[in-house]
């Protein structure tokens, strides 16, 4: 496998994620960018922290280890 391909693979996916596009690769799974809103996190100590919003990548796959065997 060529390193040129791996670099391009990373770049293309990153570009698509930044544009909020989902990427579905047959045989692997689907990548999707989700927005996580800010939220309050309460600690057992009583401390409450306001967590900032973020965009996160979620990956879903139908591939199971048992199916592959």
């Amino acid at each position, binding site marked *: *496998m060529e390193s040129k391909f791996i670099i391009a693979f990373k770049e293309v996916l990153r570009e698509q994620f930044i544009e909020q596009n989902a990427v579905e690769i047959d045989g692997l799974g689907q990548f999707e960018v989700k927005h996580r809103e*800010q939220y309050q996190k309460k600690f057992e100590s009583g401390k409450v922290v306001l967590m900032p919003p973020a965009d996160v990548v979620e990956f879903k796959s139908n591939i199971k280890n048992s199916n592959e065997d």
Partner: protein
Amino acid sequence: MKIDKQKLVELLVQKTSMGEEEVKSQLDQLIERIIDAAKRGKALEIREFGLFYFDEDGELKFDPSDELSTEISFKYAGMKPVELKPERDTTFPEAEEDDDFEDFDFLSDIPGDDSNVFPGTEEEKGVFADQEKPAEKKKSTPLKSPKFQSNKRSGSIIWVFAAILAVAILVLAYLYFIGSLATSTQEPSPAVTQVEPEALNDENVAARDDSTEESEAPDAEIEMESSVEPPEEIIPADPAEPAEETDVSNEDQSLYGLRGSVMEEANNGYSIVLHSFTEEENARSTSENLTRQGYRSIVSSRTVADRTMWRVSVGQFETLQNAQQATRDLPEPYNVQNFIQRIQIN
């Protein structure tokens, strides 16, 4: 938009200038290697992209790398968690506690799955659900402690101490009263300035109003109105009478608030961040737009991972709580997509 495998191949062909068949073959090899490594109980890492592995349930998982996560979430880069309520048995955090908190690195410490980071914690979705409740009011220990009632055996000793304490306090209060009387006859109130800096701020506001106001309502009323809520007419929504309205905004505006013009004296407070840009020009134009809509708009920069981010925030608020309450007055989507930070002037 969804990119399927065929579209991905096309994009990869453009990027690599390889042939379509070759790209397909390379992609299949990559998928095969990922699955193969995972089946052998190993994780395959694509550097600066992420990690593929099978979890305990045998499902294929992907953990994005820090670099990828940062890049995707660049709009929020540099935003750090804000402590709303300190640990129990402490009063509400002032400046010192906030400074400690600044050291907490959000980007590296908070991955997507928060439950792993802080086990045993509860999360509440939504914004500022319990704003109506004021922060815990813990005043200094009252003179009459509950121990006085419960511990009757040593009651007499305690009573003696209490009596001595009360006398001492009375004497001190008397001396203080005498002292303040003496000074107040000469100069207005140096003691008050030291005890309550907020009072000084209010005086400054009153003084400023006084100097700009000529023949309007009495100063006391102006101050009271402005401290509750800035009057609507501050914002020139209709440019029909711009000159008159801008004058009003300068005179009647309170020190803190969401709308009006930015007050230099209020830059020690908090502001609501609505946008984050990589280009200063974009930040400035957005800020100008917000200013035209009547908001106090501030542009500030912060360097995150060797990258300068330009933040556009609105409002100046004395406390975090006030800023949080003000987010409710913002239109959608800003009323939920925002973040509060200490005001930073470049």
